[in-house]
């Protein structure tokens, strides 16, 4: 039995919607067919709130809040899109594209990339900010998979799926700011990792072509993510 206080009613984009006490704005929006762009969020993993694409405006709040981490409150009025939010999201995408060497045309994930799709969705025809062209390495040491840091957007999905679902915690992050980089074990070559179970979950959840299967050629790396909801269900919803 749910106490009446546990159901919240709120407005998203002018529509009246209802939510359970612990539901986030993103969950409720998606339930109601309202699209909010995300990149670091992936259903089945813990939320991180780092890509900032799901920022929404809440009436009465001066700050923009990430829809993925903000819980619904009674009487809340949420706006998921407006010209300002659109422009912010576009600029954020631009910052990602300029940050590392995202060259779609030769990328294994060309056509299957969440970043690329968002770029197209937001009409990002060019990047105005300066390309940084960092000298990023590529780790081919693993028998089956490759990590190409040039295409990594540091969403940490790989870190989360490895820690929370597979339980290996092979991936982590080192360095800070623009030098931040995902690492396997204690910054050893992936192929020498003792904790890696080669399950490949990290590869499948990666939104871009940063993690991919060896031997795949350009545009051939379509990611399979169906396993995540099943695993979550089988665990009784616990992460």
């Amino acid at each position, binding site marked *: 039995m749910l106490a009446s206080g546990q159901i919240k009613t709120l407005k998203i984009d002018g529509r009246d919607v209802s939510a359970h006490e612990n539901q986030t704005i993103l969950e409720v929006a998606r339930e109601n067919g309202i699209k909010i762009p995300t990149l670091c969020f992936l259903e089945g993993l813990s939320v991180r709130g780092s890509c900032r694409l799901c920022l929404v405006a809440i009436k009465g709040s001066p700050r923009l809040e990430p829809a993925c981490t903000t819980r619904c409150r009674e009487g809340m009025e949420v706006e998921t899109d407006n010209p300002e939010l659109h422009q912010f999201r576009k600029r954020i995408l631009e910052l990602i594209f300029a940050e590392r060497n995202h060259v779609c045309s*030769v990328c294994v994930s060309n056509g299957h990339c969440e970043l690329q799709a968002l770029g197209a969705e937001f009409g990002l025809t060019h990047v105005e900010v300066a390309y940084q062209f960092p000298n990023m*390495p*590529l780790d*081919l040491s693993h028998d089956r998979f490759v990590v190409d840091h040039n295409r990594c957007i540091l969403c940490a999905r790989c870190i989360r799926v490895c820690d929370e679902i597979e339980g290996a915690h092979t991936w982590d992050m080192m360095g800070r700011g623009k030098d931040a980089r995902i690492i396997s074990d204690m910054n050893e070559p992936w192929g020498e990792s003792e904790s890696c179970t080669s399950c490949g979950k990290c590869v499948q959840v990666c939104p871009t072509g940063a993690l991919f299967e060896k*031997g*795949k050629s*350009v545009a*051939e790396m379509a990611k399979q993510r169906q396993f995540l909801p099943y695993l979550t269900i089988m665990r009784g919803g616990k992460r």
Partner: protein
Amino acid sequence: MSKTITINNVTRIEGHAKITLHLDDQGMVQDAQFHVTQFRGFEKLCEGRPFYEMPSLMARICGICPVSHLLASAKACDDLMAVAIPKTAIKLRKILNMAQIMQSHALSFFHLSAPDLLLGMDGDPASRNIFGLMKDHAQLVQDGIQLRKIGQEIIALLGGKRIHPSWVVPGGVNKPLSEEHRDQILASLGECRPIIHRTLEIYKSIQANFKEEIQTFANFPSLFLGLVSPGGNLEFYDGNIRVADAARNTIADQIDTLDFNDYLEESVEKFSYLKSPYYKAFGYPDGIYRVGPLARLNIIDRCGTPQADEEWAEFQGLQRGAVLSSFYFHYARLIEVLFCAEMMERLLQSKDILDPHVRAYAKPNSFEGIGVCEAPRGTLMHHYRINKNGKIEWANLVIATGHNNLAMNRGVLQTARHFVKGEKIEEGMLNRVEAVIRAFDPCLSCSTHAVGQMPLNIELLSASGTLLDSVKR
């Protein structure tokens, strides 16, 4: 006092270049240099990338003949994996390559060279262009447009995209050919036969007008190099290297493409980013060789298709021994287009062409791989070294235009000596110097890639340097 004449921006060739002619005190041409002023550095930027990314990366070298780089690169990758790729994949790759050669040759002949050939070298520059051409030779121009379109359509039907197809992958191709597409291609190939025959007739009818050019357009003895099939037939994709001399004697045959480094060496000229390879055994400069349509037709025993062989017999009779004048590049191109049309049809009619098994999978099994194929402009070689994980550690590309570099320079000098008299620069002379270059149809943007080697000395040779009298247009 010596004088330098500079011809900038050679028009109607792909890419950008500059020619410098050095006159001596008597106003005679003392030296001629063909500069390539672009720089791309692809070999450096592919270091550190996984090898299976190479075909798509290398296809980006050039928007004009991406297919050639794609194939040479894919072959080098097959070599790194040390696999034998499915027979159907080989056939499909061959068709792709020939479609590319067809449309490239069409562009070279119909659009770039036809004004010179049909309107004359001394024609008024105002009308010596495609409009002038259209006035009197509308059919020819229409044919050119049509042929190019067919070539591009075949590429699009096979590879999915006209430019930079991602269909060719290490180990084969990533999608088999559908029956529908096969039939479409066969239909359009049917269209191009009459076009080619018409064009050959026109070409042969005007050839006699160019005796002087034939004499002087890089008409000198040299070696010729290219791929031939094991049986000595014309071959663009597979096969081994054959080198023939000016008398059409085969001096090296069936060189395994993997050993090509043992036969060739590269010199670097300080005036150009272009590499200049030569045949090692003969040394420099005696080892100068030519590649491309002319060379290919000089080294083979036969084309291997009936109609092309008929034309080839005629071609062979042009000069005793090898056909030496680079002017005949034009003729050779038309014969090759004919061969391509015939050969594509033959391959498409083979019964296993629709076989769904078109890709082999393997990890890297070899640390060094070489891929060689014939690009429209000549033999193209991709040579990679990888580490045990398949990461490219080193790459070297030997490009058709590079092979021809020394020969082109010699050709420019020869032509300039003949046509440049005194200090007066005449339009006709400039046209002929340019036309020599165009005969080779150099593709300059892809051949300029010598990272870390001698820089181009622009000051010494630029228009603002010493003793200069430059001509620009």
